[in-house]
């Protein structure tokens, strides 16, 4: 599906707002038909990046290429990119039909052709029959669909989506995630999606770009981001994790909590300080005497599919997910297979923050 052609390329892009750095040295390329998600906490620069691509912000430094041509100074109305805005930004003075037809009318398309395309879009977003309705009379989810239709009807090369599902309730949100993904596959358009919801990112994307404090932390497909977080920030932000300070004694051997653990990582050198990440579902609760660590269950929470236990062992409170429950107060053993220990070089303090 994804073609190797680089559709958009950001080279050394930085953006300052009155002396505050919103983006620093962003290098990234987006391939044709790719579903790319910019993921990060609020204020991490993900929306700024989208706005630079949309043409609403001008980068302070760096080059923005579209099909190999520098477009940093091309105004938004000349870019083959359309945006679904965070709060939809539908035109309040136009009805549903005229909102969607807005871009086509500007292209001086014939009336019949416009009707055909708007009809097709309404069908795609399942809003047929709403043509004459005023946009104020629509629910949040419906407005969302119209905003998507209004952008997609122009057949952009890239569709930019700025937290488009943020205002929807959970159920609707899940539905729209699947619908957006299938629309993207059906239309073969490159999607660039901004969210702070890691689950949403994991569900929908071909590629996730994790961002923090204006810098890219990691780029990769969802599985890779989840299984092999590059630093403590990514590990903490994507899914739940136990992050411990450790010492890499030698290749494939790390020490933490006063014990030595075999792992599969190498190339860190001898006696190097590292961060160790273990996912809660990767910790096995075993008999007291067979575990690598022994600890006491502090609390148990029922989470639906699994139990979440906080187990204090080796001076650390481990978050453990398991389908079987050990009562609070009981003593248990913990075991981790080498493959599930993720070792990361300790970040300089600033970037390892939060």
């Amino acid at each position: 599906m994804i073609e190797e052609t680089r559709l958009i390329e950001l080279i050394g892009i930085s953006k300052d707002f009155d002396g505050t750095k919103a983006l620093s040295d962003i290098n990234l390329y987006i391939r044709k038909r790719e579903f790319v998600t910019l993921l990060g906490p609020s204020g991490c620069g993900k929306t700024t990046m989208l706005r630079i691509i949309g043409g609403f912000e001008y980068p302070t430094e760096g080059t923005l290429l579209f099909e190999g041509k520098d477009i940093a100074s091309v105004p938004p109305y000349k870019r083959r990119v359309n945006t679904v805005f965070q709060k939809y930004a539908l035109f309040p003075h136009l009805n549903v039909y005229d909102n969607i037809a807005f871009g086509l009318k500007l292209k001086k398309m014939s009336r019949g052709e416009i009707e055909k395309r708007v009809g097709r879009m309404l069908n795609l977003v399942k809003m047929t029959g709403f043509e004459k309705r005023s946009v104020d009379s629509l629910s949040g989810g419906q407005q969302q669909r119209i905003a998507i239709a209004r952008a997609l009807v122009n057949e952009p090369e890239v569709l930019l989506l700025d937290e488009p599902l943020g205002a929807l309730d959970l159920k609707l949100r899940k539905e729209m995630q699947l619908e957006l993904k299938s629309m993207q596959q059906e239309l073969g358009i490159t999607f660039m999606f901004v969210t702070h919801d890691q689950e949403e990112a994991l569900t929908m994307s071909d590629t996730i770009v994790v961002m923090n404090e204006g810098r890219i932390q990691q780029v990769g497909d969802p599985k890779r981001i989840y299984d092999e977080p590059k630093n403590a920030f990514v590990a903490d932000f994507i899914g739940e994790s136990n992050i411990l300070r450790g010492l890499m004694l030698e290749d494939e051997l790390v020490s933490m909590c006063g014990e030595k653990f075999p792992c599969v990582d190498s190339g860190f050198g001898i006696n190097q300080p590292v961060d160790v990440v273990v996912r809660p579902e990767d910790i096995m609760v075993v008999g007291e005497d067979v575990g690598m660590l022994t600890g006491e269950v502090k609390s148990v929470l029922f989470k639906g599919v699994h139990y979440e236990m906080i187990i204090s062992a080796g001076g650390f409170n481990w978050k453990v997910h398991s389908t079987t429950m050990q009562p609070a107060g009981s003593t248990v053993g913990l075991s981790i297979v080498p493959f599930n220990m993720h070792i990361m070089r300790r970040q300089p303090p600033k970037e390892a923050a939060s």
Partner: protein
Amino acid sequence: MKRSAFAGPYVAWMAMFTVAPLLFVVYFAFKGDSGFTLANIQKFLAPTYLNVLWRSLYLAVYCTAICLLIGYPAAYFLAGKDFSKNQALFVLILIPMWMNFLLRTYAMMSLLEDSGIINQLLKAMGLQPLAMIGTEGAVLTGMVYNFVPFMILPIYTSLKKMDERIIEAAEDLGADPYNVFRRVVLPLSVPGVVSGITMVFMPAVTTFAISRLLGSGNFWLFGDIIERQFLEANDWGFGSALSLVMMMLIIASIGLLNRIDPKKEGSGAW
């Protein structure tokens, strides 16, 4: 205590100084020497008075049109991003509004008089003085000067509260600056324009002191003849009839304006 009771003082005030006088106006307008009469209304239909009404109307229309032509661009500029850091011009536009309109009109007189500031400047430059005071142009200038802030403010408000994202959405969908203005900004500012027109046209059509001071008494406007009936001719019946005509005129024009903007937003301008 019921919340509506708080409106009591206002209701009493309105009853005493608006509703009661209105009833008196109706009473005097139709009261003849022996009961009901239409004589006062018929008197108004004489060409002299119709001409005055006509002059009042077209001066008000001109004044409103000029205020719109000056006011919209000014409001657009003031509401723009470039301007947000500098409030000086905004204050300059507001200053005249803080002064009594008679003072403003006297100031205008001293500019336009035959031996006024403009003519003295012209003379100093060796040019022919202009006869400005006492012309329709002078009256119109005075009206525009007095009323233009009332056009700027509502338009400014409607432009200022416009969501920046909506403008970005239009650009995003391929609208160049001209089309952003024509298809989004202008239609969305229609409510501001309508209320600006209302706020200028109403006082313009009923104005009287400006015509007296700047028209040197050469022009009678509708407001002037109403005033005259009460203060000089002492014909309260005719004065009341003229006031009624004026009121009908205002109600009719409000109705007309509301049809331009029935939903109180800029629909139908596409």
